[in-house]
């Protein structure tokens, strides 16, 4: 039986001790969950195993012998395959090229394209992933990219498979097929490390559960002997996880009205009204046109037909700059590509949307900027060593909070959230919901798209179900069960 062990592994980043003498061992043939709040060091541990970052102290042992890889390629050759938290495919290449990058079959000096495609095709089919190997990655959606990453990792026939939040952008049915793939690995003595913030998944897929908090190992437990409450206690210490308040009502006034909107491609003839202080959910499977719908309202992409009314005024030809001025905010789903500027500081990233509000005239009012930054860091509990560090030094979940904070700084009247809780821990998720509710109480309306339907049921006043680009039904959360919601969105 294979074993992956660490012996007092530490990782010091500037300003942060990301791992503090962690000693843990993972056995083959089991699925090991790795959980902890945002910034607790999960990705750091995975990155040390995969050779992406060096440890600053301690040793890693695979089957008793010390390993230390200089780069991810070397780790892959030695059987450690990793699906990273942030997507890392090359956008300009095809799916087949991405899967076999750096090791394409050759015919003499030339790449054997036919064979490349065939290998990729077989792999995708075996895993039951319905994507053509000839598709160019830049045309794929986030969840399709995610599946390609998984296929790529599997193609190494790994001894250790590390999955860093693989399901953060997948919906129920993709998650099911991923789980099927992972379960098969149990029989092959593969060591599977699995990171997730969707805690309910743990009881479906994991055997053991290892909890990190602020870089320290809290403990490893058999998942079957652990309750959700105990787990949350291990993750956060003593916190009170908030639930939906009782006093949420919404007004009569229509804030946003959408009539017969279509983008000519993904969704058609969508009409609905959003009331003052209302939280409206949009449920739907991936590819149902949810992101496109929000994008058209926000003017990030052109609508093909229909009308949008904001506060009773018809909006012609919207664009993000104009909607920002009118107090409409939208957080993007694809954080790395569309949400943040990784080259810039955390403080800059928190003030992009509110740039024009940072003082009068052409100058940036530094005092105001500082105040805006500090407000979001405190309200959202962003774990930062220093707001002058680059945003790329934040953990994935904390980057997501920056995306949300950037928009909250404009003090919006309507907020459009595309997967706002992607990759953030249970507690931070509640903080964001809390903010949505607090805003709702102040009369601010929100639309929220999420693949996690239970989330919609918890947060929203009303849920639209989008299927194949049309509104299938409008439901109230108290009237449906999660199962019903899934069934309607899937068309069963």
């Amino acid at each position, binding site marked *: 039986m294979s074993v992956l062990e660490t012996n007092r592994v530490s990782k*010091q980043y*500037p*300003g942060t001790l990301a791992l503090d003498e962690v000693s843990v061992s993972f056995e083959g043939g089991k699925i090991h969950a790795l959980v902890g709040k945002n910034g607790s060091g999960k990705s750091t541990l995975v990155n040390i195993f995969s050779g992406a970052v060096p440890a600053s102290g301690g040793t890693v042992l695979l089957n008793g012998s010390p390993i230390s890889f200089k780069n991810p390629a070397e780790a892959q050759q030695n059987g450690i395959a990793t699906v990273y938290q942030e997507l890392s495919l090359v956008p300009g290449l095809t799916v087949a090229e991405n899967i076999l990058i750096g090791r394409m079959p050759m015919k003499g000096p030339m790449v054997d394209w036919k064979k490349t495609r065939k290998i990729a095709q077989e792999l995708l089919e075996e895993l039951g992933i319905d994507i053509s190997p000839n598709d160019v990655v830049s045309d794929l959606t986030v969840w399709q990219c995610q599946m390609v990453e998984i296929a790529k990792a599997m193609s190494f026939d790994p001894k250790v498979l590390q999955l860093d939040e693989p399901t953060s952008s997948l919906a129920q049915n993709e998650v099911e097929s991923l789980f099927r793939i992972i379960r098969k690995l149990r029989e092959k003595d593969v060591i599977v490390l699995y990171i997730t913030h969707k805690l309910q998944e743990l009881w479906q897929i994991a055997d053991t559960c290892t909890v990190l908090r602020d870089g320290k190992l809290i403990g490893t437990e058999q998942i079957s002997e652990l309750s959700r409450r105990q787990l949350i206690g291990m993750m956060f210490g003593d916190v009170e996880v908030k639930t939906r308040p009782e006093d949420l009502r919404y007004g009569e006034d229509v804030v946003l009205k959408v009539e017969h909107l279509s983008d000519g491609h993904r969704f058609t003839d969508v009409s609905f009204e959003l009331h003052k202080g209302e939280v409206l959910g949009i449920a739907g499977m991936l590819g149902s046109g949810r992101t496109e719908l929000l994008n058209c309202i926000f003017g*990030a992409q052109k609508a093909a037909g229909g009308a949008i009314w904001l506060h009773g005024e018809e909006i012609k030809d919207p664009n*993000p*700059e104009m*909607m*920002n*001025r009118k107090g409409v905010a*939208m957080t*993007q789903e694809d954080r790395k*590509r*569309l*949400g*943040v*500027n*990784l*080259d*810039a500081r955390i403080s*800059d990233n928190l*003030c*992009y*949307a509110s*740039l*024009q509000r*940072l*003082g009068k005239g*052409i*100058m*940036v009012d*530094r005092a105001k900027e500082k105040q805006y930054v500090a407000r979001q860091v405190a309200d959202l509990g962003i774990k930062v*060593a*220093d707001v002058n560090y680059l945003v790329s030094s934040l953990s994935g979940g904390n980057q997501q909070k920056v995306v949300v904070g*950037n928009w909250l700084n*404009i003090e919006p009247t309507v907020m459009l959230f595309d997967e706002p809780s992607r990759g953030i821990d249970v507690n931070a998720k509640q903080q964001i919901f809390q903010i949505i509710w607090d805003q709702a109480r102040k009369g601010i309306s929100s639309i929220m798209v999420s693949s996690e339907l239970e989330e919609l049921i918890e947060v929203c006043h009303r849920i639209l179900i989008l299927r194949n680009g049309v509104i299938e039904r409008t439901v109230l959360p108290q009237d449906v069960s999660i199962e019903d919601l899934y069934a309607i969105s899937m068309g069963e």
Partner: protein
Amino acid sequence: MTSSKKLSIGNIVKNYTLEIILVALAIILTFVTPHFLTLNNLMNILRNISLQGVVAFGMTIVIVCGELDLSLSSSIALTGVLIGLIGGKLDAAGIMPLQYGVLVGIAAAFVVCTCVGLINGWLITRFRIPAMIVTLAMQNILYGIAAIISNGFPVITFPAWYSFIGSGRIFGIVPVPVIILAVVFAITAFVLSYTKFGRATFACGGNAEAARLSGINVKRTKIISMVIVQLCCVVSGIMLSSQVMSGTFSFARGWEMNAISSVIIGGASIAGGIGKMRGTLLGIIFLGILLNGMTLLNVNDYIQYVVRGCLIIFAVLLSTLKNKK
């Protein structure tokens, strides 16, 4: 918490690499040639870097914004030609004496180059043509126009006072161009770090699509940056024509390369989103001292070209390696 701010030798070397190389270069030159460390020569270096330095500052804003401007050498030459021609023509037609006529010429140069910047920016943002292509084409167009309007001859109708801008010295020591360099540095550095436009510039260069989706007007930001660099060209063109009291269409050839290399040597990323005005200032001083040293050591002109070319490749290499990790 404070471990990052520790004053270790390693950190100092990492943060002040360019300064250290600069000092080392100066020390070496002081020892190998007696002419280097003289007040006269140092002022000379400063005067020489002023003309190109001014455009390098403008170029920093453009590069941070994720674009490039290769047309600036022609704009610099065109400025000199325009000023001399308009001054001369007004004088000849008896409308205005030459002293004042060149002022009209200067105003005209500002208007023309602003338009050039607007057109460059418009073509880049509206049709998504790469800046490299648009501005290279513009370089040829302006070069041709400057040659046509001057019939291919140097224009030499400048009043006597005009030479003060390029050759005058304040208190008999500090060359006027150095003062102008300092002023342009202060303005551009201020724009980049303290204004909303400056923030937007970094956002557009770092991730243009994310900037757009945050409600930043990416097109306007890019166009303004293309105009700013052209305004810097006019300032540089005035100094250049004043120094030689002539406007010639073939002046300033290849200056865009010097501007780009000083920006990159100064630590900016050629991909956009990263850069500092202070870095560019060090970059042009470095380049100025290097060229001055080679001249003092009688290094052949053509070898200087080779050295300069290698330097650009080296600097870009360094910056890509540094910004990749």
